[in-house]
């Protein structure tokens, strides 16, 4: 899906297993938390978890705006 979207617009792949993301050819990669909960962490207090989630999304948005020449892990 990432590669198909990239044909028409920049895309960022938020992925737990970065090596797989690299293997499949994603160009902008943001490491996620864990396989069962890539964008959250059930062990955190809700407020802390919300901060974590926001940080990840903001990092992904920054990645979208960053010019890259090669596969990049943010």
């Amino acid at each position: 899906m990432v590669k198909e979207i990239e044909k028409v617009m920049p895309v960022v792949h938020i992925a737990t297993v970065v090596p797989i993301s690299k293997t499949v050819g994603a160009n902008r990669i943001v490491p996620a938390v864990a396989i069962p909960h890539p964008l959250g962490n059930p062990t955190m207090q809700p407020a802390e978890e919300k901060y974590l989630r926001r940080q990840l999304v903001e990092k992904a948005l920054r990645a979208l705006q960053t010019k890259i020449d090669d596969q990049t892990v943010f």
Partner: protein
Amino acid sequence: MKLELGNIHVRDLAFGPVSEVKENTVVIDQQALIAHLTELDHRIRSLELSIAKPGDSTRIMPVKDVIEPRVKVGCEGDIFPGRHLGEEAMVGEGRTHVLKGMAVVTTGEIVGFQEGIIDMSGPGADYTPFSSTLNLVIQCEVDDSCNQYDHEGVVRLVGLEAARWIGRLAEHVEPQEIETYETKPLLEQAAQFPHLPKVGYVYMLQSQGLLHDTYYYGVDVKGILPTLMYPTEVMDGAIISGNCVSACDKNTSFVHQNSPVIYDLYRHHGTKYNFMGVIVTNENVTLKDKERSSNFTVKLAKQMGWEAAIVSEEGFGNPDADLMMNCAKLEAAGIKTVLLTDEYAGQNGESQSLADSHKSADAVITNGNANQLVTLPAMNTVIGHDRYADVVAGGFNGSLHEDGSITVELQAIIGATSELGFHTLTTKAS
């Protein structure tokens, strides 16, 4: 560690007034076993025992685990150790009796969506090793107070304790054959066959949480750092399954007890190579755990002086990354690797087989394509609940037909693409 395995070949399985092993027939007093199992947990709502024999028109589903009855004889230790207080002793030494040819199979209402099917006859029987065992099937239902984790834990306990209870019937029976397996302490083992290549086995265990867990001496392996294991430990049930990963490539407790790579490595130990031992490792859900575990695995392999390793995976998808990390890092350390896996290559076999790859993974053995479709004809008897056919992994809307037949991917059949090769699936070059 040196272990003598005494096989008692089970020719028949029956219910009767007294539990015993008599002339190669295992007789089980239903009421006594049910009474024993009912005591295990107050949340057990019902227990039903059935016997399913090879060739019967019987379907068992959804299957949680398959377990082989074994017993320690005249020595310290317990089969399936580490789960109860007072059972912490190391296993893998002394003598163990095995009721060869039978199994305990647990079924009941579904816990997770990745439980599977055993057909005792028909085309489905060819795909599962447990169509050729005499099966004592335990249908265990729990009360509504159980969440999924409690449910899995209760059914796991029932299966293991039933296998132990039956195994004890073999304690004073003379085995038909005794096999001896031995691995010496590291320095002695290295010195025993100094001119042979030192080979080891990296035993990857499913540890994803969410009902995808494996236990080593009762410890959830998602919380371990990779560790050394004497190969004989598995023969006493040191590794047990608490795992609802896809039925086709989940290693049931039976498969761990009969771990094919370990038994096969012993076959040429001392003639073709020096089998040094096993590293038990996990397949966790975070990248840092994957990196850490693969680093530890390589550290231990180098520490033991391995020159080559067999690495087996359990499950698919993100564990493919663990497999590739183990492979790449072992190869970078100068240790030759062979990988055992299976494929999810789509129903037409044209999709990418693994989620991850690495150029150093150049010796890979496949154990089949889990997406291959198969139609299982209706059976006269269903033990458990076939209504889950549409929702188990490998099933889809419409899998269960009105006449009771089922169309599913091999993914739904227990052991169909066992990544340890515990099956009969093969391929021929055309």
